[in-house]
């Protein structure tokens, strides 16, 4: 049985830089951060006052923050989504405000915070009549979801899959990360010598994936290919990454094997790059295990967008496709004094590159790792 290519035929997102992929891309290229003061709950006892929130988004009793982000995106694309499309939702906390309100006001609506309820709302908005599922794997959730979608297309199980990813900045999550002392008081500085922790962020987005065969048949634009993937687990520590980076390097090796490429073909790497001491150090070790002493441009978007949790993987895959189409590696925002381990690999300036292949990696609590090989589409209709 011949396998099929999984291609992206549509994507869009809202990030702390604003609505649309272009605003995020331009924001990153400008080198300015979208991390700002949190104004939706009191932060006086939190580790930081800052997070990368989406402008003008306000908590409301009518609609959750993630639905405020997803509704305009999905309404716009719904006419283009075939009704037989399978939906995969990736999120860590979804509509967590329902649970927050339930606890604070002693109401009985906590169950509405379950992600399967959100999945049903998304399927309704997208106009799909087929079944769906939710993938949750901490900060790897949406890259894992895209890898599952590509896998289902490659083995001919499905030929049209909508991956939707979202997470919002909430008191629930900010208090939790504060308790773990994982946040930078000011702004995340990935791969910087003086990095102190991550900045939380929020985002929502979607990617419609199809088999290349169906995309050609329906005369769809092909925006990029999910060419290979690897998922591993450190099996080491519940919050800390494996210090030697072996789990992530194995994920990268598996992804390259799945794509049938070698490390020499990869033009640049979108790292998870949270800005925590241990994550960034582990990532550089993992990257060097695979790429040896031949530096490939590495960047992190999280100094700009913050760590958008369950949405991070999808946001970074979309930016990965932008890097391929624009042949430009974005700068690592907030990097001013590069850590010794990252010297020669990570830059605060934008760079150009020619390769049609890039790599996107993510890691998360529980030791989960993902790596995806992204390729520029050969055919653009």
């Amino acid at each position, binding site marked *: 049985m011949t396998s099929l290519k999984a291609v992206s035929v549509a994507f869009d997102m809202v990030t702390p830089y604003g609505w649309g992929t272009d605003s995020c891309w331009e924001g990153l290229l400008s080198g300015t951060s979208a991390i700002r003061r949190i104004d939706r709950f009191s932060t006086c006892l939190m580790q930081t006052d800052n997070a990368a929130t989406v402008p003008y988004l306000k908590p409301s009793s009518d609609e959750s923050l993630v639905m405020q982000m997803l509704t305009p995106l999905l309404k716009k694309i719904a006419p283009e989504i075939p009704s037989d499309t399978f939906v995969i939702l990736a999120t860590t906390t979804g509509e967590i405000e329902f649970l927050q309100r339930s606890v604070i006001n002693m109401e009985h609506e906590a169950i509405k915070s379950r992600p399967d309820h959100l999945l049903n709302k998304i399927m309704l908005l997208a106009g799909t009549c087929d079944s769906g*599922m939710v993938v949750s794997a901490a900060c790897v959730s949406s890259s894992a979801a895209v890898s599952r979608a590509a896998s289902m297309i490659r083995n001919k199980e499905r030929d049209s899959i909508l991956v939707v990813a979202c997470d919002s900045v909430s008191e629930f999550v900010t208090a*939790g990360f504060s308790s773990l002392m994982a946040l930078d008081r000011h702004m995340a500085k990935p791969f910087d010598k003086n990095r102190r922790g991550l900045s939380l962020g929020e985002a929502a987005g979607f990617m419609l994936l199809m088999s290349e065969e169906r995309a050609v048949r329906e005369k769809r634009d092909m925006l990029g290919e999910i060419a290979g993937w690897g998922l591993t*687990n450190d099996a080491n520590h519940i*919050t800390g990454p494996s210090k030697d980076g072996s789990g992530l390097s194995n994920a990268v090796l598996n992804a390259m094997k799945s794509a049938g490429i070698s490390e020499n073909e990869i033009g640049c790497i979108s790292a998870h790059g949270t800005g925590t001491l241990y994550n960034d150090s582990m990532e550089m070790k993992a990257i060097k295990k695979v790429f040896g002493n031949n530096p490939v441009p590495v960047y992190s978007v999280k100094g700009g967008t913050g760590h958008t949790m369950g949405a991070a993987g999808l946001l970074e895959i979309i930016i990965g496709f932008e890097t391929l189409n624009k042949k430009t590696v974005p700068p690592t925002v907030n990097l001013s004094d590069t850590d010794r381990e990252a010297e020669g690999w990570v830059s605060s300036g934008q760079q150009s590159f020619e390769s049609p292949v890039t790599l996107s990696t993510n890691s998360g609590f529980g030791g989960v790792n993902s790596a995806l090989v992204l390729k520029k589409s050969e055919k653009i209709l």
Partner: protein
Amino acid sequence: MIAVTGIGWLTRKGYGCLISKVNETHEGFETLYSYFKHKSYFSCPVKNFSRFDTISKMTCFSAALALKDASISYSVKHKQDIGIFGANEAGCLESNMNYFQDYIESGRILARGNLFIYTLPSIPMAEASIHFGLSGPLLHLFFNEKRIPSLLSFAGKSITEGEIPSILAVSAEENNALCFVLQTEDAVSAGKSLSLESVIVAADKSNFSEIITALTGLA
């Protein structure tokens, strides 16, 4: 072809290994950890077990039974290329409530990191992967229909595609848990196994005891 080489189950009153036909009663979850250590279901102490949330404990108990049923030995130090996929009805809703209630009751002064950790539905699988040394893919999944059959089918496809040779598929709730070991037929040793297709059909029932009865009939 995919084979199911081990099935472990657990309720408030009993536990079992379906393929090796173990069926025992127990005196409650509070004493079960010591009993499992004594019976060597856990080959070494489970680090921080007393701090785990209920779903993590249920996941670890059922995974220990399933691995024993499949005659797969493990060591924390020697990792194995085995994945773990989980699907349950409520995800981590109970742990979310516990964490946020505790934070609100403390006057919103300080959240407890140890409760926050369990607000991710994938953490029970992560706790199991650390103890059993499982270095393959780890995912939590919600299916909007036929939860256990969908989980088994999804795990089976990941093996068929060559992504991983073995997967633990776990469905752990507050009161019961079920764990399956799925392997490629090549990986199956001389022990008895069941076809994945027959297990999926048997697991397509509306309640836990009906599933156990149907699976017992297969084994």
